């Protein structure tokens, strides 16, 4: 995409479950698809780790490609020139870390989380990536309500990771998702306030924020100085109130297992009935001189290729971004 904003696409849309998107030719097809649609950078995402995370975890990427340069050569074969960012959830048990169940709200886990972050930071830096995008805390339903000290505890952890990342030339962005406990605008701001702006910023996800009841345009206007990363996608629904606290919300809420039975929450940009004012949001990015990556996401939104095509259409026809 030729634009003053830097556009990337999240490759996780193709990695639907643990035993797909493993073969290199399958990954090449997805990368060529994104290249044909005008994207030249991708965002990686970690998962459960192990032998099938060929584009997910550092250890497995290195087994496949040998080095950061090998990874980049693999991407370039498809016309993708680099990695913008890498999403990592330290609370997701991974095979490489012995399926450790690490919680950012538990200070006793912080040393292990900092250690687990290092391979991501090192490979991301070597590949020329910009932001390590992290889940700041596990799902709200899995732990007690936030206490007065939680923002400080979690913030202190990410400051530590931010120091290591900064030394390698990488930023750390805390990704807001609609299930994590820093849910309201006040809670989110309290977490940001507990971090060092020089080391840690916010990954603003337009759909997740909207589902969580926060207007992404208004939030960005108010807090643009803390936003270091953007993920762009749409939604047709908002949390009706406390749905994110439903036990097993990953399935009961986000897969329609209970309650309102909404089986799909995330949609392509410009979807009919979409709640995100994408045009206004991108206009605000431009107005504030945003210099980070804008990652378009199509995850959990149906056929990854078809959604990517619609997202590219939106960028070209609604946002006026040239494909080539």
């Amino acid at each position: 995409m030729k634009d003053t904003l830097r556009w990337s696409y999240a490759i996780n849309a193709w990695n639907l479950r643990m035993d797909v998107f493993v073969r290199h030719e399958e990954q090449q097809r997805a990368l060529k698809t994104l290249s044909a649609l005008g994207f030249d950078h991708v965002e990686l995402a970690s998962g459960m780790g192990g032998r099938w995370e060929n584009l997910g975890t550092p250890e497995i990427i290195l087994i496949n490609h040998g080095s950061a340069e090998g990874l980049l050569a693999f991407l370039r074969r498809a016309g993708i020139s680099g990695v913008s960012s890498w999403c990592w959830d330290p609370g997701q048990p991974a095979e490489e870390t012995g399926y450790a169940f690490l919680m950012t709200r538990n200070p006793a886990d912080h040393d292990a989380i900092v250690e687990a972050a290092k391979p991501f930071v090192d490979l991301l830096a070597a590949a020329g990536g910009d932001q390590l995008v992290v889940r700041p805390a596990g799902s709200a339903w899995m732990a007690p309500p936030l206490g007065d000290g939680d923002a400080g505890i979690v913030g202190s952890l990410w400051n530590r990771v931010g120091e290591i990342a900064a030394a390698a030339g990488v930023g750390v962005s805390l990704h807001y998702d609609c299930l994590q406990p820093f849910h309201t605008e006040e809670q989110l701001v309290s977490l940001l306030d507990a971090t060092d702006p020089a080391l840690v910023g916010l990954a603003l996800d337009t759909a997740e924020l909207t589902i969580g009841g926060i207007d992404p345009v208004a939030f960005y206007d108010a807090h643009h100085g803390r936003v270091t990363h953007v993920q762009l996608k749409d939604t047709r629904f908002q949390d009706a109130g406390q749905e994110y606290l439903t036990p097993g919300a990953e399935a009961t809420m986000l897969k329609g297992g209970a309650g309102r039975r909404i089986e799909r929450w995330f949609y392509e940009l410009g979807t009919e009935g979409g709640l995100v004012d994408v045009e206004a949001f991108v206009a605000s990015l431009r107005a504030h001189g945003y210099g980070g990556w804008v990652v378009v996401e199509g995850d959990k939104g149906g056929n990854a290729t078809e959604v990517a095509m619609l997202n590219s259409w939106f960028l070209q026809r609604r946002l006026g971004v040239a494909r080539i």
Partner: protein
Amino acid sequence: MATKWSYMDHWVTETPQGPLPPSFNRAYMDRYVKQLSALGFQGFDTFFFYLPMLQGMYGSVPAFEHFLQDNGFEKITGIFSAYPYATKHTAPHVRETHDRIVADCEYTLRGIEGLAGVENFIVMPSSTDWQTEPVTDDKIKIMADLWNRVGRITLEHGLKTTCHFEFWGAIRTRPQLELFFEHTDPEYVYFFCDTAQHTIAGVDPVQMFRDYKDRCTGFHFKDTKNVDTTGMYRTAPDPELMAPDVQRWFYPMGEGGLVDFPSLMKEIVASGYDGWLTVEHDKAELGGGTYAEATCLAKWYIDNVLAEAQREAEAAL
């Protein structure tokens, strides 16, 4: 040379009622057009039998074309008409059915009135080989007579009748192709080069273009991994889906097929051809593929591999 790429209207997408064409409803059709638009296609080819559906969804066929234009397309570029299965009503090798076929073509021409300028009236010049056998010179001349008639009529409406040969059709070998073109009027009947179909039939599409470039008005850029060496073209009732040894005949460019697309591109540039180039995916869903991915991969191949071949050919001019 500025190449112009169009898309031949085959597509299947997931709907609440299963995998179906985007004609499922207007919203799906709109999405399909937007998806093609995102890749930069400028032309749209469709089948004659889709015209009433487009009229119903958009109010008129020109209104559909306006929607295409709102999404970056130039126009509808080709209409595909065919009688693959010979019947007592329509069989190009049976002269008694020609009046009906001509009337059908005139009906289709009325269905596209008001469009910006469809260029190709693409036809399968024959029905299946197995229904036409024995394929004699006389039958090929009868088919030539039909398309001479149709070509004269379509030209009056600004469209060139252009012949798209199938590997399973009754005009498939190089001598049959030559005889057919010998007996058709170059003013009324043109050549449409489907790279995969010719390759499967054992005919080199690059050489076909080289030899008939003056009559060539279009291409279907699609690939194949098989040449029919065992007479599968005679499989009844349908060799495309029922051939005993090949379950899928057609593939996107760049997926390890037999067609030498860079060489064809260089021939196209060297010839000075300035018409439309068309991507076609036929039955892309076989074996778990999707039309969306096949189309993206084809466009990647165009933007990377064919663009390089084009640059090399232009430098050599």
